[in-house]
């Protein structure tokens, strides 16, 4: 009798836990039942019309966070087979990645974003949302191969350069530098944007704490180039051979361009002259006297 009552209690407990679990947790495949549908529309909220709610299942499954939607979207309010009526909240990435969030918050990106600037980048701007991959993964937007173009999404944008006063030609000058070329051709130890500017604690060069502040450049460059002293850092880092930016280099390049072009014209002219003179002399020789 006692055993039977224990069994009933146990069964009831299990059942009740089961129903609580149904209401509170939901598996990723439950979510993807709806969200893998390319044409599915969400609910319109106020003046905001319904948007597609598609999440690429392959992208999600191959991401590093592929096990649990609820880890980032806690507090789901519907049943697994039901439409939820509100957007599930997005948990802060910092709940797991505290130091990264802290650094980002102190960076120029984070400060602007936290002040409500919607154009300022947050975690997903650089890392992606549902397809977050390890930095070492060649497909990650923040992998060395891809980071320059990821940063350039904003830093090569004319509108952003004008609005925020950020310098232009960052990608072009990086790609034509030793660092850029080395990375382009597969040398993964060469510097990318984050090697000098940091990954999360990115500060403008005018900030004395910035890794690219003039005073800190010797130690920043010195991370890879032991002995790179103050003298080394006196020059421009992102060099573009324009008159305004690097006049010395601009004129040396111009000199070679014109000199080489001049030489080519001279030599071709000489070749034509020599051959026409030779042909004339031959004709004269062959003429009957």
């Amino acid at each position, binding site marked *: 009798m006692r055993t039977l009552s224990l069994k009933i209690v146990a069964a009831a407990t299990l059942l009740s836990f089961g129903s609580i679990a149904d209401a509170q947790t939901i598996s990723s495949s439950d979510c993807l039942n709806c969200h893998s549908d390319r044409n599915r529309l969400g609910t319109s909220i106020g003046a905001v019309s319904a948007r597609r709610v598609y999440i690429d299942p392959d992208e999600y499954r191959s991401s590093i966070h592929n096990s649990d939607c609820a880890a980032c979207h806690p507090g789901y309010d519907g049943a697994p087979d039901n439409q939820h009526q509100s957007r599930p909240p997005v948990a802060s990435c910092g709940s797991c990645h505290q130091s990264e969030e802290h650094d980002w918050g102190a960076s120029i990106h984070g400060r602007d974003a936290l002040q409500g600037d919607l154009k300022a980048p947050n975690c997903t701007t650089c890392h992606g949302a549902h397809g977050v991959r390890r930095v070492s993964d060649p497909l990650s937007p923040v992998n060395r191969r891809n980071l320059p173009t990821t940063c350039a999404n904003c830093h090569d944008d004319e509108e952003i350069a004008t609005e925020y006063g950020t310098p232009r030609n960052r990608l072009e000058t990086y790609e034509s530098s030793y660092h850029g070329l080395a990375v382009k051709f597969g040398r993964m130890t060469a510097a990318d944007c984050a090697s000098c500017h940091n990954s999360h604690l990115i500060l403008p060069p005018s900030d004395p704490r910035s890794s690219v502040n003039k005073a800190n450049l010797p130690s920043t460059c010195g991370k890879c180039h032991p002995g790179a002293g103050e003298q080394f850092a006196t020059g421009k880092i992102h060099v573009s051979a324009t008159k305004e930016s690097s006049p010395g280099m601009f004129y040396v390049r111009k000199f070679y361009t014109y000199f080489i072009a001049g*030489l080519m014209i001279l030599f071709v002219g000489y070749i034509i002259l020599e051959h026409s003179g*030779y042909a004339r002399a031959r004709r004269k020789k062959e003429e009957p006297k």
Partner: protein
Amino acid sequence: MTNESNQLIHRFAVSWRLQHLSLMIGVFGLALTGLAYRYYDTGFGRFLINLEGGFGSRGILHRICGVMLGLAVVWHGFRVIFTRTGHDDFMALMPEKGDGKRWRLALKAKFSSEPFNAEWGRYTLGQKVQYWTVALGTLLMISTGLILLMGDRAVAALPKWMVDMVRVVHGGQGVELMVFIVLWHLYSTHFSPGRFPMDASWITGKISKGQLKDYHMREYRRLFPEDD
């Protein structure tokens, strides 16, 4: 007379020809691997990079050819300083009085159809200019190349703008030298009137008596004073 003008006479020593050969291999190797780097983002550059087994091996080949060129230069220097023939050949490459005048007259003659002999010595002014351009250009290439080769040590010793400038000079000077070598030196060896397919004296070390008379009259007189 024809037989006599076809008679071949010694012009370049074996050592001189081997120096030229190692210089040639080094310079062309450097040019092909250097142009691959300079024009990496063009079809031509990609073709060269593939040909050289990728970007990494391109760099290794460039350095190997650089060492070869360096050895050729050192060898040349030793021959010029320590051997009689090397020294004499070098001295014959010095500009001399009358070179300018002969050059002006030779240029003028190219506009006319009258036969003209500028009476050059062992080397024409054009050959002297080719030698000195390549010699001084090579020294500039080697010195800038060594700075770039030093990598971190150069970065530690020089300001970055100077390292950047060295890179620009190395690239610009390299292309300039190539233009010089291809459009003047190779042209005059292979495509100058009467030379096609090739003036073989850089391999055989010999020149015909007739050619010597036509192009280096004073050298001819020096070698065959009895013919006058």
